[in-house]
Structure formats: structure tokens, C-alpha cells
């Protein structure tokens, strides 16, 4: 058997990726392949990708899958793993150096490293393989996160490689960066997906940890660059689900020429299990009920008459 292993890519720049989602149909037009970059400078309390927060690899633990073999205890140089009763083990993630030694020996899938350094060539191998699906559907590559632009150099290289391969490219950003950083990737992006989470500055800071001042300024500037933008607004009960907020957003967007579409996305609680696996606390009071369709439609009325497409999910 020829196995074809052993490529050495150590010299090439790498990006830290926590997932490559194929048949991605919610991150831009058509059937896409979305590359999720690790690291984010927002802390939205409803985030369903908490593994994207840290810009470093992390150990993710799924205790239900543990078979109590103890291999991780032997493999760990930092003393994170202990066995209490010889059956199931306990993990102290505060001691974890994210070296990955335990995950490598875990045969049960209980310990999984989140975050993998990948070269442009390695990512493009997957992205290009899916290219036939892009052709008929108008799909392509989306760089998402986390905040992909925290790795702007690498993301720009990846988008460029995709464009050179004739693949449609989209950049999904929260926009909380110096505008010059955003500009790095723009020449290689056919579309920008831009998050707009709340219009009130204090409210935005309360629920995401950062002010929206720079974000809205960036959106304003970007919308005049000539690149098409899809704005994405998650509807978070008790946070931004007021007509007042939506009307303010509608007014803000109405003057922006690049905005081609607005997606209103209902909150969902699918990320709760991930918090546990990463040893993170999820305040139960912040696990909300998804807004019903009728509520989504009510809020959408604020955008009636806009000259961009409105999509209520």
C-alpha cells in the first residue's frame, strides 16, 4: 500500500483553525466551505462558538466518552489528569499547557484538541475539492471565526489563493479592528459578512464586552468601498430585540450603499455543551429561549422599505 504521508510544511506560515465546515449554507451564498479561525476580541454572552475565544489551541473534554483507560494520566507532563476511582478521570484545565499529548493517546474521543495550525495549501486542498459544489450554487470559501482578521495576514493569503483558483470568497467579521487591518483582506474578498449586534453603545459593551463605536465606523467606511456587504444581526432576547434598536439599525444602514442584504438571525442555545467541554462557566441565566417566528417577523418590520434584501431566518 502507498500511503503518501510525510509532507513537511513547517516552513510555511500557518493559521490557527478550529473547524472547516463543508456544505456550509448559512455563511454566504450557495454551498460553501467555511474556515473557522480561532481567537476573538468580542465576548458575546450568547456565543455558540466559545472555542473560538482563545487565540491558542485548547483542550476540549467530553467526560461521557471517557473509558477510564488512564493513558492521558501517563501522557500528561503537567499533571492535569488524575484518576479518582480508577474508572473515570478528572481534568484540571487550569494546569493545561495545551500540548496535545493527552488527546493524542485518547482513543475514546474524550479529549480533543481544538485549534489546528494549518497552511494555506492544506486548507486549499479541502476548499478546492469542494469546488464543483460552488459552481452550480454560486458558493465558495468563507473565512469566519472567532474573528478571522485577528490573523489578517494569513486570512488575506488564503482568500487570495482561493480567488486565484477562481473561487468566490467571503469574509465574516465582527469588525472590531483598526480599519487598516480590515483593508488587508479586502482586495481578495468578493463579499463581506458584517455583524451588527446592537446599536446602543452601552448595551453593546454590556453584552459583547466592547464598544460598538469603532465597529459602526468601520461598517460605514467599508460600505463605501464598493464591496457588497451582508449585515448579520442576531436577535438576542432582552438585549437587542426592541423595535427601537431595530429602527435605529435600519436608519443607520439606509445610508450605506454597499449593504446588499440584512439577515436577522434568531438566538439559539446550541453552544451550551461546548462551554462545559472547555471548562468554561456558562451563566444559566444567560441561556435564553429562542425568539419565536412571530417575534422575528415583528422586528423585521423595522426594515420594511429598505433597498437591500431582508432575510428573516
Amino acid at each position: 500500500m502507498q500511503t503518501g504521508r510525510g509532507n513537511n510544511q513547517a516552513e510555511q506560515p500557518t493559521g490557527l483553525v478550529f473547524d472547516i465546515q463543508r456544505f456550509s449554507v448559512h455563511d454566504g451564498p450557495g454551498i460553501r466551505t467555511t474556515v473557522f479561525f480561532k481567537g476573538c476580541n468580542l465576548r458575546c454572552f450568547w456565543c455558540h462558538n466559545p472555542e473560538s475565544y482563545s487565540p491558542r489551541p485548547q483542550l476540549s473534554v467530553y467526560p461521557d466518552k471517557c473509558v477510564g483507560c488512564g493513558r492521558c494520566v501517563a501522557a500528561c507532563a503537567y499533571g492535569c489528569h488524575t484518576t479518582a476511582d480508577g474508572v473515570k478521570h478528572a481534568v484540571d484545565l487550569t494546569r493545561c499547557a495545551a500540548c496535545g499529548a493527552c488527546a493524542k493517546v485518547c482513543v475514546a474521543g474524550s479529549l480533543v484538541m481544538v485549534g489546528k495550525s494549518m497552511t494555506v495549501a492544506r486548507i486549499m486542498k479541502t476548499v478546492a475539492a469542494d469546488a464543483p459544489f460552488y459552481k452550480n450554487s454560486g458558493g465558495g470559501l468563507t473565512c469566519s471565526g472567532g474573528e478571522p482578521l485577528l490573523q489578517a495576514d494569513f486570512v488575506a493569503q488564503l482568500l487570495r489563493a482561493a480567488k486565484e483558483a477562481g473561487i468566490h470568497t467571503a469574509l465574516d467579521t465582527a469588525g472590531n479592528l483598526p480599519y487598516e487591518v480590515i483593508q488587508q483582506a479586502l482586495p481578495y474578498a468578493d463579499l463581506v459578512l458584517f455583524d451588527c449586534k446592537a446599536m446602543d453603545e452601552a448595551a453593546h459593551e454590556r453584552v459583547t464586552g466592547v464598544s460598538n463605536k469603532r465597529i459602526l465606523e468601520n461598517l460605514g467606511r467599508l460600505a463605501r468601498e464598493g464591496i457588497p456587504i451582508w449585515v448579520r444581526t442576531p436577535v438576542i432576547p432582552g438585549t437587542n430585540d426592541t423595535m427601537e434598536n431595530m429602527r435605529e439599525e435600519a436608519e443607520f444602514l439606509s445610508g450605506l450603499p454597499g449593504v446588499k442584504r440584512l439577515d436577522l438571525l434568531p438566538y439559539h442555545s446550541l453552544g451550551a455543551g461546548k462551554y462545559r467541554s472547555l471548562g468554561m462557566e456558562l451563566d444559566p441565566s444567560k441561556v435564553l429561549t429562542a425568539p419565536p417566528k412571530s417575534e422575528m417577523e415583528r422586528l423585521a418590520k423595522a426594515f420594511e422599505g429598505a433597498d437591500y434584501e431582508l432575510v428573516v431566518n
Partner: protein
Amino acid sequence: MLTFREKVDILRIQKEKETQKKLKHYTRPGFFDTDDKGWIVPPEDFHYELKPNHENGGIYGPMAWAENFYHLLDIHPPYIDPYSSLAGAYMTKMEWMGGHRWHPDHDYPELRKYHEKYNMVSGVGGSHHFHHDVGEIGFKLGWRGILDKIRYYQGVHEGDPDKLEFLKAEELVIQGIQVWIRHNADAARDAAAAQSDPDLKANLERMAAMNYKLIDEPPETFLEACQWLTWFLLQSSIFNGSGAGGALDILLKSYYDKDIAEGRLTEDEAVYHLACLLLKDTQYFEIGGTYPDGADRTNKISWHAIEASHWLRIPTALCLRIHENIDREFVRSSVKYMFEDKCSNPSYIGDRVLVEGFVKNGYSEELARTRYKTGCNWCALPGTEYTLNDTVKINMARVFEIAYQEMMEEGERSTERLWELFDKHLDTAIDVIKKSIDHHVKYAHLSRPEIALNFMCHGPIEKGVDISHGSVDYYNFGIDFCALGTVADSFAALDRAVNEEQTYTWEQIDEAIQSNWEGHELTRLYLKNTPHYGYGGTLADELAVKIVERLTHHTKKSPTPDGWNCIPGLFSWANTIGMGRAVGATPNGRGAKEPITHGANPEPGFRESGALTAMGLAVASVQPRWGNTAPIQLEIDPTLAKGEQGIENITNFLMTYCNDLGGSLVNINIIDRDKILDAYEHPERHPDLVVRITGFSVYFSTLSQDFRKLVVERIIQG
């Protein structure tokens, strides 16, 4: 007066009630693990026993079978439903009565030894699984015309007693069908007389008059053509379970066009008649596709057929043939209905790879385009090709196991040696299958000739020879290979364990396998978590492609010893459970007797996200590409096709898979996890839940426990 759609609603409710009745009537485990056939429970006083003509209890030869069949049709109870425009239903099958046994004078112990060794379904004694030509023969001649044709050839062959007996038998079959139709016409007449509702009365009177006419005459209208087709298909189903419907939109086109033009038929009425036809039985019909010159043949009937299936919301066996010039809106509409109805209708077949592949066997593109999908996984030329499709299967997991055991016994242990031995045994298995096909062609007609299908093909009547014995123009025998994922993953797991990471020795792995992982769970998990076939870019992916290259090479390197052409495909049908039972633990972490992987599909749960794209690429990469299929089975959550964009995405997936990647066949389940889990625990709560098993769909509640478990695991993990 009820609308056509309201009548179909009533028919569906009756069908669901009938299904519950069937479940009570036949309680043998596994009885319903096959197509949701449209047969209905017979009256309690209906009873028929075959009359054997051999001391072993078997029936042999055309006349003995024809006499039995005639008698059965004569006493078969008529079935009239005032809400249906079509008369008839079948209530039994000769398959269930026994009588079909291979002739003891032509036993094949040497071959059988190998069939058992490699756990193969040999095809010897297999029946139907080819396609008739109702359009050119039945619709043109009618039953009387067929009778005349048979009698004419009796004169031509009167000096040959064997041929004469064969043709006398065929004559008796036609007479039996005519008697059966007459009984139904009488019943419709009586029902009309007793019916007080004027609309239903008129329907029954029309039904009676139409059927008296069709005893002799060929059909002249759309409705008559639907009724004529019903009689032909149902009788063949009673005889030996044939399910080849045909290219529905071509078969009925001239009748439809004429009736519409002359104001005899409305579009709604046409949908209603098609719904009545689809309700009669899960016969495999193709729609869409191309004419022989490559032009799109999608017509009004193609659209009406998906509409009829949508009205019915029951398991049907419609298949839409996708090609580069197909009306995209037609595909899109079918996807919309598929998600709306959640009945797994239709399936999709890729024209490109099937035409290109069949041409490689030495045929023209024009001919290849008329090779319609009329079976679970297979295509055949109408009336001119004999195929044994879906009846010949090689369990590659068993072939692998034998190679593995031989390697462990001989002492030279390496993945290279294992590969050599696997290849050798695969070659041997295929060689045995080829010899078995020859044996079948020589002797099958002496056991049970195809008396219910011969007369609808070009050659058997003219030559006085059964179709299985060389009387049509083309013979292309399908050989299906099973367990691709199990074998590719097993090779990859061994390579990782003993070569790449050197975590285990051969002896350690063997000890774990021999103990069926008892006490070796960590070894099992290690092997099982080796990146699988289907993930994309893995060693298992590469090996799956190589395995298909080898099986294709061995199949195509020579015809059978008697010169018959063979065509490889990947398809396990419902054998994933049975074939799994014949194989011990395998190095991919699979336990002894557990199911093998399904068709060309990867192991369920092979990746967490984006499975549709990954699986599409993987299964497209393992197509043998000689004209037969390697289907992909997709389990899709209904939320994936939420809204217009979702429907667009699935349509795009199908178009890309068939037209760009060269995929051959797509079977889809639209099932939500909560519903299937609840139905698993409480099947009685979901009598209308339809799932697609492979090429066929069924009511979930009718499946055996084993099959329900298999489907649930596939859907939940897939």
C-alpha cells in the same frame, strides 16, 4: 362531489389502514423489510396452494408454472375501490407459496461451496430484475394482440416440442390475465349497480366498461393506458415479484397529449390517475432523463408524476433522471416536495455517468439513454436486455476476512501481503460468480421461466425461448459489491496500527479480533477512530478507490467463460444486516455479526459536519463507471432545506453530484431526529412515517427491530 385530490386523500387513509391490517396478517419477523408493496390482505376464505410437478415439491418448466398461474389468477379475488379510477389489486404472491426450487438435475455443489465461503448471493435461480417493453408491445397489441402473436409463433415452431410447450404456456398466462381482468370488470359492474353516490357510480361504470374493453383491446386513452399498465405490472408482481415500472413520462405521453388536445382529460385528472397507478404498487418508474438524441424529455407527465406522489405522501418508487439539460425548475420542485412530504420521494439518478459507462461496454449513446432506471439500484433496456440486476452480490467484508485469516495462518504478516491476498480472493469470488451466471443462463429456464415477462420482451415469443436462456439482444449481468467502507476502513486501521504508529502488533490485533474485542475495548476504539473512508484525503479514502479499481478490473478483464458481459456496481440492498452476520469482528472496530457498511456509503458518523459535501465527493470517487450504479444514501435533517434557499442548496447539490461529479444514484431520507427516535421506541405512534432504506422506501413501523435499529443508527450518526 369530491375533488380528485380529496379522493386521493381517502385512498391514502385506506392505504395506511391496509398497512396496519397487513402487519397483523403477516407476523413473520423481517417479512416487511423490503419494498412497501401495494398488495392488500385477501379475504379470509381465499386460499391457494401450488400444485407441484416434482416429487421434491417444486414446480418445473413453463407449462407447470403457467397452469398454476392461470388457476391462481382465475380464483384471485377482484378488488374495486370506488375512489380509485383503476380496478385491481394483488393479494398474494407465488413467491410466498414455495414451489420455486432450482432443478435438482442441475445442482452446482462446487460453485455453492464458494458461494458459501465468500458469502455471496450468486444469482443462480434469480428472477425478473430486467425491464419489459410495455410501450412497444403491450400498448400496441393489447392482450388479444399478444395472444395472436403467441399463437402465430406456435405455428412457426410447431415442429419443436420444447418451444411449443413454452409458447402454449405463454398463451395460458395471457388467458389467465384476461380472466382476471374480466372478474374485476364484473366486480366493478356489480359495485356500480349497488352504488348510490352518482359520482362514484359513474366512476365504477366507467371502470367496468373500460375493463371489459381492455380484456382484448389495446388502450386508447390516458386512463386506459394507466389501467392496462396496472394489469401487466400487478400480474408480474404476483408471479415472481417483478417491480420494473418503466419510463412513465414516455410510456404515457401520446395518450396524454391526445386526451388533453381532445378535451377528454384535465391536468388534475391526469394527476389523480397517476396517483391511483402509483398507489397500486411500488413499481420503479423513471421520469426526466433524455430522448435518445440527448434532448430533455421532461414533459407534463413528469411534472404530474411528482405532483401525484406529493398528493399521495406514501412510499413510491419514482426516480428522477438528472442530466445537464434538464429543466432545473423540475428538479427543484421535486426537492421542495421531498422536504415538504418527508416521504423520501423521489430518488435521483445521474444520466452522465450511466450513459458514459454503458457506452464503454460497446453500445451507442442513443441506446444507453434508453436504459431506464426501473429497479432499486438498476437500469435496463426495455424489452431487449437480460441483467439479473440486484441479484448477484459479493460480500467483500467476508472476502477480506478470508484473506486476513489466510495471512495470519501463513505467517507473513504485513498490510502489503494482506492486500495481495484480498485481491486474490476477490478475483476468485468474481470468477466463481461469472461461472455461476453461466450456470444460470444454461438451466434457469428449466426451473422457473419468466412466463409473466417474456411476452413483453423482444425475442422470447419470436424464438420460443425463455429470456434467461438467450432470446433477447443484450445480456449484461450486474455484479454488486458490498462492504466497501468496512473493508477500506479495516485496511486503513491496520496500516495505522502496525505501520504508521506501530501501536499494536499483528498478534495483539488478532487476539482482540478473535475475542470479538472482549477485554480489548481500547484496541477497538483505537482502530475504530482511524480516519474513515468518506472523511476526505484519508488513507481509507485512497484505499476505497483502489478497491473499486481492483473489483472493476477483475469484473471487466474478461466476460464469463460462456462469453456474457458483466458490469460492476456497489450496492448492498437490504443485505447489510445479513451479510454482517456472516462476518466476524473486523479491524475497523466493527463487532462480529454487526452490519457491514451500506452500499458505497461510508460508516455512519464518519464526520461531524459537512457530511453532504464530503460524502458526495467520496461516493463519486468510487463509482465503477461501467453503466451500473453505486448509490449514495443521504440522511438529511429537515432544517437543512428550510426556506427557498435551503431547497436551492439541495437542488444544487444534486445537480453538481450528478452532472459534475458523475454520481450515479442518490437516495435521500428527510427525517428529524426526535421523530425517528420516538418512532423507534413507539412505532405505533408513527404509522405514517416513511423512511428510505436503499432504493426503496417503506413505512418505518413495518420494519423488523433489526432494520429499525439500523435505520435509526444511520440517521442519527449519519
